[in-house]
């Protein structure tokens, strides 16, 4: 009798992910900071409407790569980016492209909550206003309320909309920043360690929010918490020393990675 190796659950997952449309396509992306080659020949696809996690030790290039996706690296002196990154098949490094428009389409949430020193309302209203996304005061209010609702914050702040955003708790501030990011109706949200300054409860709320947001948005998250990557993402990419070592369905990366370096890192064996 022949011995058959069972088609594993993880294979099914891979096939399902492969069927998903590609939102962001990076091809041979290199980043130099002066002489330092920080990101080396990275080629990866980020599927549409899901969470993709980038993991790796400090200095591995994951945040550098994340910042390429909305051209935040343009603001760093001495930084050169080469290669190609496309969102919906359009080159985001095209010289004719309006970077301000790009950053409205690709929102960003940072490690430390950074609300503007303005009211809760103004924090969220700012983006839609400068982008001219609301035609009337009523419409603007609607956008603010919807964004706060989607960020899971509205019920907690509905009576404090005029209070300063900086007066909220850390977790609320981070959700306010997410509300601010989604107020301009982006397609992609980049999150650079969004929970590292938060307590476990606030972290759980952000993670819950992320899974809700995937109905509308593509989320790319950089995290140092491996458990968080395993919990929230469908795909995971492991970076090391500027290289993309391995990328695949999160289940595969955390159950049975192909590369020894990935296995050593996620199991805590990196020397």
């Amino acid at each position, binding site marked *: *009798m022949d*011995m*058959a*190796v*069972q088609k*594993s659950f993880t294979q099914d997952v891979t096939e399902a992910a492969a069927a998903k449309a590609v939102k962001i396509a990076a091809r041979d992306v290199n980043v130099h900071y002066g002489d330092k080659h920080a990101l080396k020949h990275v080629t990866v696809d980020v599927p549409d409407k899901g969470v993709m996690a980038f993991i790796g030790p400090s200095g591995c290039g994951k945040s550098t790569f994340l910042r390429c996706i909305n051209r935040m690296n343009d603001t760093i002196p001495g930084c050169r980016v080469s290669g190609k990154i496309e969102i919906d098949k359009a080159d985001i490094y095209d010289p004719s492209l309006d970077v301000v428009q790009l950053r409205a389409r690709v929102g960003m949430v940072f490690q430390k909550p950074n609300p503007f020193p303005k009211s809760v309302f103004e924090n969220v209203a700012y983006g839609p206003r400068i982008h001219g996304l609301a035609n009337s005061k009523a419409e603007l209010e609607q956008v603010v309320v919807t964004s706060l609702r989607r960020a899971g914050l509205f019920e907690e702040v509905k009576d404090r909309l005029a209070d300063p955003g900086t007066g909220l708790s850390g977790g609320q501030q981070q959700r306010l920043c997410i509300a601010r990011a989604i107020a301009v109706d982006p397609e992609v949200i980049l999150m650079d360690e969004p929970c590292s300054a938060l307590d476990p409860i606030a972290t759980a709320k952000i993670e819950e929010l992320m899974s809700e947001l995937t109905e509308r948005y593509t989320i790319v998250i950089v995290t140092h918490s*491996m*458990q968080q990557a*395993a919990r929230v993402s469908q795909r995971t990419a492991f970076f090391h020393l500027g290289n993309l070592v391995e990328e695949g369905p999160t289940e595969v990366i*955390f*159950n*049975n*990675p192909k590369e020894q370096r990935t*296995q*050593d890192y*996620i*199991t*805590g*064996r*990196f*020397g």
Partner: protein
Amino acid sequence: MSEHIVKSFDQELLLLDKKIAQMGGLAERLLAQAFDSLERRDPKLGESVVASDRAIDQLERELQEQTILMIARRQPVANDLRHIMTVLKIAGDLERTGDLAKNIAKRALAVSGENHPKSLMTGLKHMTELALRQLKDVLDAYAERDADKALGVWRHDEQIDAMYNSLFRELLTYMMEDPRNIGLCTHLLFGAKNIERIGDHTTNIAENVYYLVHGTTLADDRPKSDDTSSTLIRRE
């Protein structure tokens, strides 16, 4: 495999393997002694088997506690998680193996006064020897993380099944020849069944070793030839 940054994690994993080796050694000894007590009609040896099964049970409880604690504390992933889960499952299979051996020893006590037909004992002896070899091989495969060896054990179980089939028929024939044999033969039949079950636990362990090494599972269509559940011998 390189070491963990947290050294105490490595110590804990080593301790798990040490206890599995202990349990495995005990299970082998219990099975061998259980058969000896049956063959030599030695109720004293049988009693000692029954008593030392408790040591296996105790080890299983310890492993259960330790693995659960490690999962809570370390949140293991990838090969570490497979390692810990495999230990938990192997401990379960070895504990069952100990129980089955104990059951054979109990039967030795029950039939110690009876006269055993030699050919029946020879068949049972061969089954025991093969089961012991399989158990030893699978424990080696685990210790060496040798998936091919585990696969060999997995495929070999068919032989135990075949022996069980022929012994089953033989025992039925004895019973039909003389109803006075029924008491003894029934005990021997259960003894043989227990060894056949031990073979199945051994293949479970082999599957777990394969999973531990490769991260993929073996399909559940292992070559099986235990057809006693549909066997009947009619008097001509």
